[in-house]
């Protein structure tokens, strides 16, 4: 029995790999397991080869595993393009259809055991039967997933409208399950431990939901991979909440529409990816200067330029933190898992509204487009609340008043007697443009003070464990790092995890407390140039020996890569 199993389903366009994988996840979730489901596709707009990677476990899954336990291939078309994403080892099992030809050497060379299952032939024994359903039945049997869970899932998607297809699929699943007797040892998963409400959700959906929970009721956006699904979800959700969704003509319009809505008092968000964020940078500075609350979710993909739109990387940190011209203090927040996409985005709305500043949320493709089974959040979470200006009382309203906290009471259009002009030009306290040194210094100070003086509470970072090695990481690398730390402990190497959720502003004293007593620091990130490492070096005093482990995407960070470095560090005197 195992507490975690990773299954990859591979096939060319129309083979039904994604359908089967979604059903596997739904059935495993209904059985009580947790799941993480990622996908990789070729360049075709529709169809083409695709790999579905599903990790099922008795515990919440926030990382891919080091290798695939079961690779089920409906065919082997263009497998060489996917091999690097489907690492196999001697313990792996390849389930292959003889009709698909020889197992390619690039896969067979791993030493994985090859088990033959004539899926296409078996499917033909059922009228309307499909090979993907035979494969699904086989995989379910190999991991000990009760067949009635699959029947329920098939029923939910097919029974009402396609009774014939339902019967054929149930029969094909059963035939696949019965055929595994000839496949050798399976990978039975330990019985599930989950109780309580669980959700099946993608990171993009979770971020969208977090935005709505935080109070966002306006979204203007332009389609871009891999953020589009968040926009599509929000487009469906906002009207029912009395909110507004607009598909803008470009990213310049998206962010400026959001600024207009937010100026009007309605919390606003847009979502994009690196190229869109690049276009939005000027307006982010406008939100800084005009002190307009705003959230921009960047679902990062491989860059620079058009880069690798469908795959993940953590290389927009530099532009998100440092890309604005002028001295433009703003907020940058990064979710650490699919579940955290909800909290982090909700928190971002709360921070933006409270601090009257733009907040960039750095999600990425691996979070946004993967689907996970997570525990439903028990905490309602923070809601954005603006400090609204009191009703007019004679004296001229000072929109940009120099308060101790740096946060000035905000009026919105429609409030009588508090009219002002919000301005991207430097200004004095009333908002009237000013090029005077004293006004510039005072407003720069206030805009900086309101962010650095705020109490962000424990949400600023995940800090776990107490080893004298500290793994400092961020975003989607947090899950793999946590898993690597747990495995290192089994080898007697103790490490702590420090993953800032708040990337800007820097919180030097909080970081110093988190790193107190550490003798070695391992910085982990998915960026070719080590952007996070440089950011840490610039903003913080890191104790002891510091080592940077950085590499680009698009391959996901795997726990074993981090573990190897931890074990090596642990052996040093």
């Amino acid at each position, binding site marked *: 029995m195992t507490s975690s199993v990773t299954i990859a389903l591979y096939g060319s366009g129309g083979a039904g790999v994604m359908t089967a994988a979604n059903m596997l996840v*739904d059935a495993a*979730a*209904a059985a009580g397991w947790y799941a993480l489901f990622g996908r990789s596709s070729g360049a075709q707009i529709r169809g083409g080869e695709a790999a579905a990677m599903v990790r099922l476990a008795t515990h919440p899954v926030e990382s891919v595993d080091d290798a695939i336990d079961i690779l089920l291939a409906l065919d082997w078309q263009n497998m060489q393009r996917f091999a690097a994403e489907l690492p196999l080892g001697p313990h792996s099992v390849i389930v292959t259809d003889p009709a698909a030809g020889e197992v390619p050497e690039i896969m067979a060379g791993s030493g994985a055991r090859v088990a033959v299952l004539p899926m296409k032939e078996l499917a033909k024994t059922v009228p309307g039967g499909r090979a993907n359903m035979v494969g699904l039945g086989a995989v379910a049997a190999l991991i000990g997933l009760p067949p009635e869970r699959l029947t*329920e*899932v098939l029923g*939910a998607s097919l029974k009402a409208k396609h009774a014939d297809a339902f019967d054929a699929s149930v029969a094909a699943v059963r035939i696949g399950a019965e055929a595994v007797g000839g496949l050798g040892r399976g990978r039975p998963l330990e019985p599930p431990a989950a109780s*309580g*409400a*669980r*959700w*099946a*959700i993608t990171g993009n*959906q979770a971020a969208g*939901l977090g935005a709505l*929970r935080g109070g966002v*009721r*306006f979204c*203007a956006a332009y389609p871009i991979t891999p953020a589009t699904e968040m926009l599509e979800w929000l487009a469906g*959700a906002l*009207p*029912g*909440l009395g909110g*507004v*969704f*607009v598909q*803008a*003509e*470009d990213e*310049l*319009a998206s962010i*400026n*529409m*959001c*600024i*207009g*809505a*937010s*100026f*009007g*008092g*309605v919390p*606003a968000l847009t979502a994009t990816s690196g190229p869109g964020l690049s276009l939005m940078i*000027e*307006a982010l*500075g406008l939100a800084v200067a*005009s002190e307009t609350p705003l959230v921009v979710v960047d679902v990062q993909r491989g860059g620079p330029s058009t880069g690798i739109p469908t795959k993940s990387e953590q290389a927009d940190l530099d532009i998100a933190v440092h890309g604005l011209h002028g001295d433009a203090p703003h907020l940058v927040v990064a979710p650490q898992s699919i579940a955290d996409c909800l909290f982090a985005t909700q928190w971002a709305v709360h921070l933006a509204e409270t601090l009257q500043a733009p907040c960039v949320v750095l999600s990425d493709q691996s979070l946004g487009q993967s689907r996970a*089974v997570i525990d*439903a959040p028990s905490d309602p979470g923070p809601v954005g609340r603006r400090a609204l200006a009191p009703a007019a009382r004679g004296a001229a309203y000072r929109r940009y008043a120099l308060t101790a906290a740096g946060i000035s009471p905000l009026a919105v*259009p*429609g*409030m009588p007697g508090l*009219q*002002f*002009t919000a*301005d*991207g*030009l430097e200004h004095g306290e009333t*908002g*009237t*443009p000013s090029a005077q040194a004293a006004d510039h210094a005072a407003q720069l100070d206030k805009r900086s003070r309101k962010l650095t003086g705020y109490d962000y509470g424990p949400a600023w970072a995940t800090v776990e464990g107490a080893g004298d090695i500290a793994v400092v990481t961020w975003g989607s690398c947090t899950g793999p790092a946590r898993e690597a730390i747990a495995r290192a402990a089994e080898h007697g190497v103790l490490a702590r995890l420090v993953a800032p959720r708040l990337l800007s502003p820097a919180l030097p004293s909080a970081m110093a407390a988190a790193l107190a007593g550490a003798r070695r620091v391992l910085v982990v990130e998915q960026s070719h140039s080590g952007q996070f490492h440089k950011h840490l070096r610039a903003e913080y005093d890191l104790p002891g020996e510091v080592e940077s482990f950085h590499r680009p995407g698009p391959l996901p960070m795997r726990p074993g890569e981090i573990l190897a470095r931890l074990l090596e560090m642990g052996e040093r005197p």
Partner: protein
Amino acid sequence: MTRLDPKEFKSDVKPVWCPGCGDYAVLSSLTKSLAELELLPHEVAVVSGIGCSSRLPAYTNCYGFHGVHGRALAVGAGLKLARPELAVVVAGGDGDGFSIGGNHFLHACRRNVDLTYVVMDNRVYGMTKGQPSPTTEADWENSAMAPHGTGVQPFNPLAVAVAAGANFVARAFSGDPNGTAAIVSEAMRHPGFSLVVVMSPCVTYREEEREWKTLVRPAPPATDDAAEAARRLMGDDGFNIGVVFKGHRAPWMPRAAAATAVADLERRFLIRGQAALSS
């Protein structure tokens, strides 16, 4: 409703404009129009981008937003869609609206949100001290940036607006402030996206524009036929003043939907068999 004096719509901020600039008169026309429409200053938002004319919001006593270059229409659309009860006026110049903001101009016409867009067209970039704009004549040689003229045909914003779907298209002249106020009022009353291009001379960099007052003439009565409006606009010399086109398209508003709660949305993520559980 009490009608305010137009002065009540003016702030005490001193304009940066040069003496003789047409924009002073446009500001007066706008405040006259807002008073005439029986609006109150806090019910009106004036949104702009960058340029001489884009400084206008702070000279009003309305809510104002002075954003970045070229994006005023996007800010204005976002504001109007979020707060439909506000009267939203977008103000700016020819460079802001038709060059750097050209794409937003096209899509604002198409989208037909209920905005009034007042463009003070002086056929020059004044704030950066005299470079050719999209409406500058091809042979204007008085710019160090284009010493031999641009050699590029000027943009015809009114014809483009009609083609792109604007619901109200008019040309005004700052030298006739009462006429301009009447046109702006009509534009604000007309549903959907209304474009008012006000010929507003820059006497500093385009001294010759002082002559505009001798060249303007009333336009023929407005039509509701877009093809006819386009024919007139493609054929005229740019000095016909008045409303050219009034369409009948309903303004675009976001789709309304049956009320849901965030908790309803959350329940859709519950895994199979848990639909009865509340989160």
